[in-house]
């Protein structure tokens, strides 16, 4: 019981079991480190995405601000943050104001639960993976709340789509997680990575990998599932009436979420920090996450947007059966072969 409490409150791995104040201080220090890391990666991914998409389109992308336009996003951020906030005449201003910062803090919270390497983790919870996915399920809910509280019909439609997608993509993700837990015997992320020492889960359960990847794209609004802010249909969906400073946060949030998604995919399926020993674990971790993110960016540059009914079709009639087949195969292999 004592150990469990320490797990939940504290950061045994980082500071050892000292007094509670040390633990709290440790969490704050680690959270700041994580936020810096998240910012750096979110920012860099934003720049990489602009550059890669520009290349796919015979463009150069940003070139003027900073070396190779690296500071362009910073300039955009400053511009957006310096703009005035629009108060909605018919809408819940309070909800709009809190939901975007809350989403950002949720992504920091998820990153606190994810290990960067064997020793670099805020808290190693026994049910860490479950908590991560419970937190992820909050994102569409906040999208829904924001879209609904802007009092805009485009926001309404976007909010409805958000809920539909939450319903159809949460299930296959949970089934895949259960499969992973079944294979490793725990929801502990450290344990899951350790179980991939011999071979990655992407090779063991390719079906699960595909299902998880597609569901993650849908969950984090990446194309071809960016129906919630479909610019050619809904102008910007739930972001139509949002003011510039919050929009800047949302843009930043997009990249942090991409980073999170890539982290989760590489932890669960690509062996996390495991790799040849000439590089430290955290380097492998970040390399894998970056590669996954690059793939996501290339998808954005090339894919067309799906229609909501086809998205639901894909979720219910393709991904859920696939994830169940994956579960079945894993169970059979575990039960009779191993």
């Amino acid at each position, binding site marked *: 019981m004592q150990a469990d409490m320490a797990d939940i409150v504290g950061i045994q791995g980082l500071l050892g079991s000292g007094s509670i104040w040390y633990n709290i201080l440790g969490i704050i220090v680690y959270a700041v480190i994580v936020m810096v890391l998240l910012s750096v990666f979110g920012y860099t991914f934003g720049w990489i995405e602009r550059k890669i998409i520009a290349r796919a*389109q015979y463009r150069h992308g940003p070139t003027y601000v900073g070396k190779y336009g690296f500071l362009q996003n910073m300039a955009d951020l400053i511009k957006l943050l310096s703009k005035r906030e629009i108060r909605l005449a018919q809408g819940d201003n309070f909800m709009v104001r809190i939901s975007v910062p809350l989403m950002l803090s949720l992504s920091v919270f998820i990153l606190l639960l994810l290990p960067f390497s064997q020793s670099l983790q805020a808290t190693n919870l026994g049910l860490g993976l479950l908590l991560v996915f419970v937190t992820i399920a909050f994102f569409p809910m906040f999208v829904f709340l924001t879209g609904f509280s802007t009092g805009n*019909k485009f926001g309404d439609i976007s909010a409805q789509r958000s809920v539909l997608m939450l319903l159809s993509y949460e299930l296959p993700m949970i089934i895949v997680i259960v499969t992973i837990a079944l294979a490793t015997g725990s929801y502990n992320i450290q344990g899951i990575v350790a179980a991939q020492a011999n071979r990655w889960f992407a090779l063991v359960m390719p079906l699960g990998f595909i299902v998880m990847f597609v569901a993650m794209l849908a969950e984090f609004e990446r194309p071809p599932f960016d129906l919630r802010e479909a*610019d050619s*249909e809904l102008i910007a969906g739930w972001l139509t009436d949002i003011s510039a400073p919050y929009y800047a946060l949302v843009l930043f949030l997009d990249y942090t979420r991409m980073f999170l998604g890539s982290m989760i995919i590489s932890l669960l399926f690509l062996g996390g920090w495991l790799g040849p020993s000439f590089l430290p674990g955290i380097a492998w971790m970040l390399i894998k996450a970056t590669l996954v993110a690059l793939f996501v960016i290339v998808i954005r540059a090339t*894919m*067309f*947007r799906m229609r909501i*009914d086809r998205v639901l079709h894909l979720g219910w009639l393709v991904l859920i059966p696939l994830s169940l087949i994956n579960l079945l195969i894993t169970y059979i292999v575990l039960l009779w072969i191993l």
Partner: protein
Amino acid sequence: MAITRINIGPVHPSTHGVLRLVVDLDGDMIERVETHIGFLHRGVEKLVETRMYMQSPAYMEKLDYVAPLSYDEAYVAVVEKALGIEVKERAQYARVILLELQRIASHLLWLGTMCNDLGQMFTVFMWSFKDRDMVLKLLEEASGNRMFYVNVRLGGLQRELPPDFEAQTLEVMDYMEKRTAEYERYIERNPVFMERMKGVGVLSSKDAKDLGVTGPVLRASGVEYDVRKNNPYYVYENLHFSMKSQEKGDNFSRYRVRIMEIKESIRLIREAFGRMPASGDMAGMPIRLRSPEPVNKVSKLSRELPRGECLMYMVADPQKPYRLSIRSPSFINLAALSHIAKGQRLADLFAILGSLDLVMGCVDR
């Protein structure tokens, strides 16, 4: 379920200009689409009445800013008919070449915007813009301007085509042929594209005839009608022009028709260069304030623009038109939108709107 009424436009990313739609939605299905136009109305038809004959081509070009030369040529042709001026043979070939180049440019722009409407991140848009720019460069070589050419003169063109124009054009056409195949490969192998284009926005051939749509939209519905074939002008008779049509009448058919028309235009341009008489000139009458007296009081003619059939009807007065009436293809094709979109999904409304290839300048005039 309650009906949601949403207002789309006149300022919206994918209404291609200033079109306003009021859409009644039942869930995600469209119950009714109401189109509101007139945001770009400039009264060009009236304006033309106050100008001398050859002062107006520049206005005509602004009607359809995606294919300006086509309107320019249609207007000058109707003036030629009214004034009884014959077009020199070499100029006829040159006009056909320029018109087909304009058609390629217009269809390429359509391809890009269509992919944008389907939620593509501007990738195909940028590709087709780059290719379109090569065509625009050719037109610039020929006319001196990149976008608004105003180089059609009574009886011919403003000036002779540049000496190396043929070689340049044929080179670009070879490239364009390769690129068209590339577009087809890339786009038609994309499952999401096929899913959103095939069987969506079906316009039956009967409805197409009843609604009076023309151009690629009509031919996609299986009706074989192309002014270049049914009522040929200039040298289209001499060239082996083959009409392109499809059966199904859905978005994908409209896409196919346009892609095939690009290929056909490439072929036409090559053939026209081959048959163009080497001697003779193509210079038209220079623009003077006084033009010859009209011989026909009422003259009308139709032209196949990239967007469909354009009918020019002119009642001539000395020096000025008494009345000019334009049947613009975009306007009639837009009327089909509410018919096609009924019962479709909201996302498909924009795919259908894109597939009709509207230019609001052409709708509002």
